[in-house]
């Protein structure tokens, strides 16, 4: 079934795409001009960054490190969303549990990412599990808070309807609860991906021998800004692709009942 969008949305998307490109082109231009004026090793022009990226692409180094980081982000994302959603829904539905665990949540929300990463390495060793766990733990409190909000907003009228018609647990979850939580899950995953990969870089810098974070640390020691930018921009590009090719289509699918005009 074709997806019909309300006009306002179509217009927004239709008109913003060229503008976005133009705005990005302007940014590259400003960068180029600044690099030309500065004429310094610490501010290379876009062409130099592209050169490094292409060289590392050909050698296979860039794809390898990107893949390692992506793997860590992906696994940590899955763990954080699963654990965080389950805990968040539980707290949203159970007031006593919420009162007991709310202080813990506030505490964890305020522990700096760096501390969690360092402690994870000290307690669990410099291994992959500790790295992925540390990334996930940084995100979990965030997911809990968002999903708790969603669970609190569940419509009791629909739950009553489901009770009268004797929906089983699975039916209830799939057709009544999850659709109501969908916007909250979407919000949590969105902010999640952005946060996760930044923390992943710290984790790699401190205790892994591959990944974008490791490479950036390496180039930092060489004072090679072109290398740093090449890896950063490559990864940002991948995250944007995921957003446009995966997150947005999925979201459009999940909310198709809302997009169709009456």
């Amino acid at each position: 079934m074709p997806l019909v969008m309300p006009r306002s949305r179509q217009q927004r998307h239709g008109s913003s795409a060229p503008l976005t490109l133009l705005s990005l082109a302007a940014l590259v231009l400003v960068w180029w001009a600044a690099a030309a004026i500065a004429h310094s090793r610490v501010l290379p022009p876009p062409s130099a960054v592209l050169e490094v990226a292409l060289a590392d692409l050909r050698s296979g180094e860039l794809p390898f490190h990107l893949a390692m980081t992506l793997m860590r982000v992906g696994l940590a994302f899955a763990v954080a969303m699963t654990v965080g959603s389950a805990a968040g829904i539980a707290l949203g539905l159970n007031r006593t549990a919420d009162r007991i665990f709310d202080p813990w949540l506030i505490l964890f929300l305020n522990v700096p990412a760096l501390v969690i990463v360092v402690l994870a390495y000290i307690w669990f060793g410099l291994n992959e599990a500790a790295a992925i766990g540390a990334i996930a733990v940084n995100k979990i409190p965030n997911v809990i808070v968002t999903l708790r909000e969603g669970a609190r907003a569940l419509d009791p009228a629909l739950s009553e309807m489901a009770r009268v018609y004797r929906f089983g647990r699975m039916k209830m979850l799939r057709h009544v609860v999850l659709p109501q939580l969908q916007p909250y899950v979407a919000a949590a995953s969105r902010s999640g991906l952005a946060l996760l990969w930044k923390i992943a870089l710290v984790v790699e810098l401190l205790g892994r021998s591959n990944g974008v974070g490791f490479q950036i640390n390496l180039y930092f020691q060489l004072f090679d800004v072109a290398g740093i930018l090449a890896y950063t921009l490559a990864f940002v590009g991948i995250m944007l692709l995921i957003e446009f090719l995966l997150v947005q289509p999925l979201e459009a699918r999940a909310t198709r009942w809302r997009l169709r005009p009456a």
Partner: protein
Amino acid sequence: MSNPSKPVPRAGASGPLDVRIDSKVYRAADGTRLTAIDALAFTAAAGSFTALIGPSGSGKTTTLRIILGLDADYAGHVVLPRPDARVAAVFQEPRLLPWRSVEENVRLALPPDRIGAELGPLFDTLGLADHRTRYPGELSLGLARRAALARAFAVEPDVLLLDEPFVSLDEMTAGRLRVLLAEVWAARPTTALMVTHNLREAVELADRILFLTERPARLRGSVELATPRSGRDAAWREARLREIDAAFPGIL
């Protein structure tokens, strides 16, 4: 036309619906107590249609919620027609899942033994045949109400509870829906209890009308309507309305 006063017997003996609420007290968060129902007892014969009329806030919805098993905090008892009786409800609002199509909404409510049931005739009767694949957000209130009715009848309930199912519809739409309700109900009579503010509606549909007092609700009186629905013409309805208005002033 089938004769609604002679219900088709159901498989598995069905008894009456027996409701007795000795008291229902709401406790507000600040500790104040509000007695919604004082003493309310009635039985509805198997396959009969009962209307419940009372002032706003007198405890009608509360009564239905207790019968539905959504509120267990009351003194009294509710005995359903059979131990594991199937109950269906048409709530004051349609309460459809906005993210599921009309047909999915109806099918999701079906009990295990009715999964895959043929729903065509029911959708046809209710004029929903062209709307099966639409989402509730695309429906007018009248259509959404019909979908809620379809869901209730599709489960083939032992007891059907309706809470002002036609409220806030224009009189013409409400009238059409009343006819539809009478039709689907006649096709398979089930013990029905309908809350309404509309005496005309009750006179058109019910075998018996129960009148409630102001809060806390007690039974104020009742009226039997023995004439089969097919014999209820405009003149008959006007006569009943006048009688009832004389006996229970202030309701019409």
